């Protein structure tokens, strides 16, 4: 039912000995939640690797499991009702799911750190932001308070917060949304992580501020050589930031590939549907002033409830290519091209009337 890890690794030798450059390797991850409607599989057999210095984008709509994947990596899934029910998460060859809580705490915020969509909810409202960063530094690097504070101010300067000394004394509510996200990034980077997980880091921000924050993450990534897992629903953000992309639907990876493959040769009907359904800014210019506005390609229906997934391929009820086989058995994820994988019985077949994508 779940694909085996080895069939899914692009060119990985085997578990235990990480492929060169791989910092994080997720194998058959299953995360479940107990709900009144029964056990729900938020992440169902996800496998992927993250290489040093690259940006892996995980994209999908609400409920696809992208955020739960991020929380699972850091073992932050609220339990109960959540539970990591299976799989392995290998960080530099060590299985994070097998670590004791004390060991895990040394990884979290240190070797792997995370930033969230709404920085206001992840910052302590009662403490000046400088002290919050200094606390993380003191905890993980064993620095004295004064040295930790000096480093915190340095971090604020590095993320381009104006007047860093004074801003360090500010409380979160005194800063704008963009500045709060910079503080979160300063905190996340203060221990030189090897992996930064950014869960919708710019979704709550205005577009000009989003551009600043994504630029900042890219700069720091180059400086530190860290890997970034960028979780987003915005295909534009994916196109401009990803090296590789994982597309998720209803808890499963449905397509994975390099950013060019994914945007120029999308193989899964869901990926094609997503790309066809978003208006492109430059189409307005091409169409000209008087031209009639074109309809967008629609994906019919809505995202299914995880508690009531259809048998077979979860996307089948919305898919224009679906046939009897799709409703009976979930397609395995298979190689579609170099570094390009897709889980679809009809991968690469054009959908009727979806040529525009």
């Amino acid at each position, binding site marked *: 039912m779940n694909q085996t890890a080895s069939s899914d690794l692009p060119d990985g030798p085997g578990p235990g000995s990480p492929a060169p450059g791989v910092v994080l390797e997720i194998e058959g991850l299953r995360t479940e939640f107990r709900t009144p409607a029964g056990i729900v599989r938020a992440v169902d057999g996800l496998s992927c690797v993250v290489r040093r210095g690259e940006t892996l984008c995980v994209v999908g709509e609400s409920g696809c499991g992208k955020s739960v994947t991020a929380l699972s990596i850091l073992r932050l899934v609220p339990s109960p009702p959540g539970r990591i029910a299976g799989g392995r998460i290998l960080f530099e060859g060590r299985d994070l799911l097998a670590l004791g809580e004390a060991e895990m705490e040394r990884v979290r915020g240190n070797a792997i750190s995370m930033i969230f969509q709404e920085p206001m909810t992840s910052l302590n409202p009662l403490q000046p932001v400088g002290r919050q960063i200094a606390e993380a530094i003191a905890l993980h690097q064993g620095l004295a308070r004064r040295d930790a504070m000096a480093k915190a101010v340095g971090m604020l300067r590095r993320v381009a917060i104006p007047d860093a000394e004074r801003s360090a004394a500010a409380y979160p509510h005194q800063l704008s949304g963009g500045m709060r996200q910079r503080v979160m990034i300063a905190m996340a980077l203060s221990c030189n992580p090897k992996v930064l997980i950014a869960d919708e880091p710019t979704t709550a921000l205005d577009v000009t501020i989003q*551009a*600043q924050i994504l*630029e900042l993450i890219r700069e720091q990534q180059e400086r530190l050589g860290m890997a970034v897992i960028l979780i987003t629903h915005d295909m534009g953000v994916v*196109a401009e930031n990803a090296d590789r992309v994982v597309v998720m639907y209803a808890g499963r990876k449905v397509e994975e590939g390099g950013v060019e493959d994914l945007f120029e040769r999308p193989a899964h009907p869901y990926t094609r*549907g*997503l790309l066809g359904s978003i208006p492109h*800014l430059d189409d307005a210019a091409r169409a000209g002033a008087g031209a009639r506005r074109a309809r967008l390609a629609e994906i019919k229906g*809505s*995202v299914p409830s995880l508690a009531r997934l259809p048998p077979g391929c979860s996307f089948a009820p919305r898919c224009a290519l679906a046939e009897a086989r799709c409703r009976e058995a979930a397609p395995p994820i298979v190689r579609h091209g170099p570094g390009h994988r897709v889980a679809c019985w009809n991968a690469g077949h054009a959908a009727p009337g979806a040529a525009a994508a």
Partner: protein
Amino acid sequence: MSALRDVAAPEARPGPAAAAEALVEVRDLKKHFPVRRGLFGGVAGHVHAVDGVSFRIAPGQTLGLVGESGCGKSTAGRTLLRLLEPTAGEIRFRGEDITRLDAAAMLPYRRRMQMVHQDPYASLNPRMPAGEIVAEPLVIHGVGGGRAERRERVAQLFERVGLRPEQMDAYPHEFSGGQRQRIGIARALALGPELIVCDEPVSALDVSIQAQILNLLMDLQDEYGLSYLFIAHDLAVVEHISQRVAVMYLGRIVELTDRASLFETPLHPYTEALLSAVPIPKATARRRRRVILAGDVPSPISRPAGCHFHTRCLYAHARCRSEAPALREVLPGHLAACHLHDAGVTLPLARPA
């Protein structure tokens, strides 16, 4: 001949012909909110949420109103509908001045102007079946005949927006986000309006559902000849649905033109930066030249003197810091409020030598 003149007429100073043709027109609309401080609630200042905005919307057309949070775009929409009382300025509907009408005199206009909200969950009464939510405007305005006739009309509306009439007895929580937005649209359509103000109607929805709702809005426009004021922060969505687009920054319109000109030749530095900041979903997009603005939007309580944008503008010069530029027609049908074009249009945008 008059049609030609209309195209060229700037919306800030429309000629009589243009005024007759517009479905709605606002002139120099202002909405200021007092900021109260201290024990006795003394007025310590004003939020200039909307500060002298002029535009018009032709029948059957969509004007997009785009800008970042706090720019005043939603307040402009609500003030236009007189859900908020304007501080100053004029609102005309089919040429009639409705700015100061009292509630009773306003009632017939309310039928003709409706609104679709951003969050379809927060804007629907959770204790009311969907069919009653859609029927409520008919009841309030005493139209649509008896109970049975009303139910028939609501069933038609349900079908028209892509819901099944059997769903009329279900409650809002039983619907998905996209379906709830369809309920909101059906309610707005119930009274057969001429104008619908759509305030971020798709920003709370998943990408695949956004396309369904945008298509529905466009189909309804074609079918009923509706006019939309389409308010959104997402430039790609606004460009897609609008014939003309107004860009707002700190309470003012800084640029107003047709969608193709806005994208091809943005005349205001803020529009240029906004367009360049929008991530484009294409693999080739990462290699394009980008303008990244520094800093945040200033507070609408203490706005910078002169041009409000000068603190973030790449091309600001002395004049921008002291004198606010007026919105004027720089190219035919293309309005911008920027000193760069004082001595004739400057393209590409550049600081004066």
